[in-house]
């Protein structure tokens, strides 16, 4: 989300100091609005914020007695240093990519869909429900497409709830989409502990395994599954849609200037609904991909927060499908690297999310610099002290 800093007390002139005393000019820093956002700055911000996050994380590591260089090297090695590492990174790229694309298209229209996590869960629930209870005996060629479609639909419905509230009632979608994450998560818990629990599962929470026809094919001996192809295809389709179609054009115009969209007769309400449905649907495919590609059953804690990380992916990728592909891969590497640390160095895996959070923090902070700049000002003598008007003379 673009955080527009308000010009608060710090950038206004200070209160009038000692009455009657003329000040000598003192240089101060002031925040000024740029007339046009700097393109150079906006290209630089993602790179610099990642670097700053790594430096900041380095200090945290130093404080906890670790050698930052060694830790970073171990992470890099764990994520990209071996075939297995790269494969695991690709596995985690899949949900980040799909959910990141979903978040990205919504953000393009300035719809702040924070609900990818919940939409992911709903996609997983709808898809596994279909495979378990509706078409358990269908062949793979029928079942896989139907299951993916159900996953999309599940996420789309979950995205449409905040979408409709926004389009028809003007309810802020940030809050509704965020809160629905908890509903989705708890609904999934309810199913895996209750109605859908596998009777043969020795009491563990989780559904029965999906029929084998529903399992997404994997690449060789790795865990990289067909979901990667879905993600790349979705990125390619979105790229074309955003650049080459009337609808993509409407999204761009509406996102930049809703009044202009209305003036041009664009169907704003319909577009809000469509975009939220597609956004949620993509996260939903991410969810069913996790189920059908990895665990083969709906279980607790399906996602370690992919839907939230997707927000960072979308923003860091500048809401551009190509950028999102690259960033999803890099942030997946960060996650895998973090897991590796736990194993190889005995460090908490929380280092990865800490770095992620720090990256987003610097990214949003840096965003301000594309719109504002710091300038040194010399302060002229302060105005004379107040005197009530009516009492003069």
């Amino acid at each position: 989300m673009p955080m527009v800093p308000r010009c608060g007390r710090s950038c206004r002139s200070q209160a009038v100091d000692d009455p009657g005393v003329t000040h000598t000019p003192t240089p101060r820093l002031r925040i000024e609005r740029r007339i046009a956002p700097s393109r150079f700055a906006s290209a630089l911000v993602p790179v610099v914020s990642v670097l700053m996050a790594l430096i900041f994380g380095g200090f945290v590591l130093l404080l906890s007695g670790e050698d930052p260089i060694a830790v970073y090297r171990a992470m890099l090695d764990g994520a990209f240093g071996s075939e297995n590492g790269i494969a695991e990174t690709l596995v985690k790229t899949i949900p980040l990519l799909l959910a990141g694309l979903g978040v990205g298209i919504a953000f393009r229209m300035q719809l702040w869909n924070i609900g990818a996590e919940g939409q992911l869960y709903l996609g997983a629930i709808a898809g596994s429900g279909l495979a378990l209870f509706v078409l358990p005996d269908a062949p793979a060629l029928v079942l896989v497409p139907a299951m993916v479609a159900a996953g999309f639909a599940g996420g789309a419905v979950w995205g449409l709830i905040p979408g409709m509230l926004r389009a028809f009632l003007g309810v802020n979608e940030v809050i509704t989409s965020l809160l629905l994450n908890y509903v989705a998560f708890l609904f999934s818990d309810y199913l895996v502990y209750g109605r859908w629990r596998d009777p043969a599962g020795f009491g563990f929470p989780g559904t029965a395994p999906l029929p084998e026809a529903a399992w997404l094919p994997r690449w060789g001996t790795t865990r990289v599954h067909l979901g990667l192809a879905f993600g790349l295809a979705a990125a390619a389709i979105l790229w074309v849609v955003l650049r080459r179609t009337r609808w993509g054009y409407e999204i761009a115009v509406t996102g930049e200037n809703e009044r202009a969209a209305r003036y041009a007769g664009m169907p704003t309400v319909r577009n809000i609904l469509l975009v939220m449905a597609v956004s949620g649907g993509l996260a939903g495919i991410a969810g069913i991909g996790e189920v059908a590609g990895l665990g083969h059953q709906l279980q607790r804690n399906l996602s370690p927060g992919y839907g939230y990380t997707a927000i960072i992916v979308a923003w860091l990728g500048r809401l551009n499908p190509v950028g999102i592909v690259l960033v999803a891969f890099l942030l997946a590497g960060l996650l895998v690297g973090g897991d590796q640390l736990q194993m190889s160095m005995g460090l908490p895996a929380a280092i990865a999310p800490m770095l992620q959070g720090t990256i987003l923090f610097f990214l949003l902070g840096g965003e301000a610099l594309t719109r504002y700049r710091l300038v040194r000002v010399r302060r002229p003598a302060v105005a004379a002290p107040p005197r009530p008007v009516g009492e003069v003379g």
Partner: protein
Amino acid sequence: MNDETDPAPLAIEMTGVTKRFGGVVANDNVDFAARAGEVHALVGENGAGKSTLMSIVAGLYRPDSGRLSVAGQAVQFRSPRDAIAHGVGMVYQHFMLVDSFTVAENAMLGQDGQGRRLDPAAVERDLRRIGDRYGLRVDPRARVWQLSVGEQQRVEIVRLLYRGARILIFDEPTAVLTPQEAAELVRTLRGMAAEGLCIVFISHKLDEVLAVADRITTMRRGRVVATVDPVAIDRRSLARMMIGRELQPADVRGHLLTPARAERPVLELRALRATGDRGLPALAGIDLTVRAGEILGIAGVAGNGQRELAEAITGLRSATNGQVLIDGRDLTNRPARAIARAGVAHVPEDRLGTGLVSGLDVAANAILRDYRRPPLARGPFLLGRSIAAFVDRLIARYDVKTSGQAARLRDLSGGNQQKLLLARELSGRPRLLVAVHPTRGVDIGATETIHRLLREQRASGLATLLISEDLDEVLDLADRVAVLCEGRIMGIVDAATADRDEIGLLMAGIGNGSAEARHADGSTMRPVVSVTSGG
């Protein structure tokens, strides 16, 4: 500095104040003075520089040159906070209140604590005391969103008084009020002046000004014309001062007037009514006809229904009553898209806010009107190559100066933005063009190009409704001029024989003698003056 025998010291004194915005001089070497204990009205057309001048006093802008004294002391305000510390506060047209806060919380907002704890009870007490003293009753515990517009304005005033303001500037305060609320405000202003406060009242409604002011300063084109005593002046001369003395010679326009007469009507409005953003009536029954090959100018002081008129015709605002006919087809309250397809082009008032998308490139802006249709699109796809050719043609034909199609719109000058907008709107060979302030904020070169384009289009049969604040522009371009005041057509005059004085009076809501008599009857529904038989 002050003469000790002067009974009313100068609350505000400005000498030689100049303020430019880019190349536009908003205030040109202005001298202005207002006393404590008076209501001082500042009148002028929109763009005359009134609000800019007072924003300097309120610390919002800094003058490029010139001096400002408040209560006899030279000051240089760096922010509204400095100004309020010197007892100067301004009530803007858009209130600066936090809706979800109470009145008392709003009053406390932005105050320097100076180490004191906030004491809501004391603040509430103070607000009640101030309210009683000036007759500005507000409940300090009410939340702002619960209050009517008039009450919110009272909160603004009370808040400034609470913070020690002795000079209060009002920027067109009655524009947002109902007539009853406006009358109440006028009483309040008189009361505050009687208590020794200095009240500056920015307005362009002459009746109101003559009723409330002790002195009136008129501004035109960034300069002060005169400061006068309302007792010594009538509305007619005040209007003349505001609009300008020069009479437009009737024979400088080179165009023929006759052909339009025979043409059939393209736009017909029948008793059109619509409400403004605040829900108050903005159009009170408009009857108008614009014919093919004719430019009908709408003159009037801003805020008298111009924007609502344009929006009601183009489908961006719903009409509450009446009809909009395009080429004889009833298109009242059809969606904007259907109206555009029927051949209505629209150059909106606020080109960057409505008509263009400043963050996108030139090409994206050029196709905003026609992106759905061949040759720019086929099915769901945009056709890149024909778009590029289309945009190139527009840029060349309408002389838009840009580094290329991929240039961001916001990097273009205002004039080139407007040329691109006009080019786009005219590219679909429309039947009717609704152009609102087409040359506002545009440099001279682009203004000439735009005027030339409008004349060319008229020659080729386009019907144009030209809404402009610039009376010179209207008289120069239009065949007929309809004067709009408070949502009504006050009269329609032939531009060739129009008398600027007459138009100025109509703009101020004053007809000739008999019209004034009728005005007194309250029966102003029909056009009051019709100098020519326009349609």
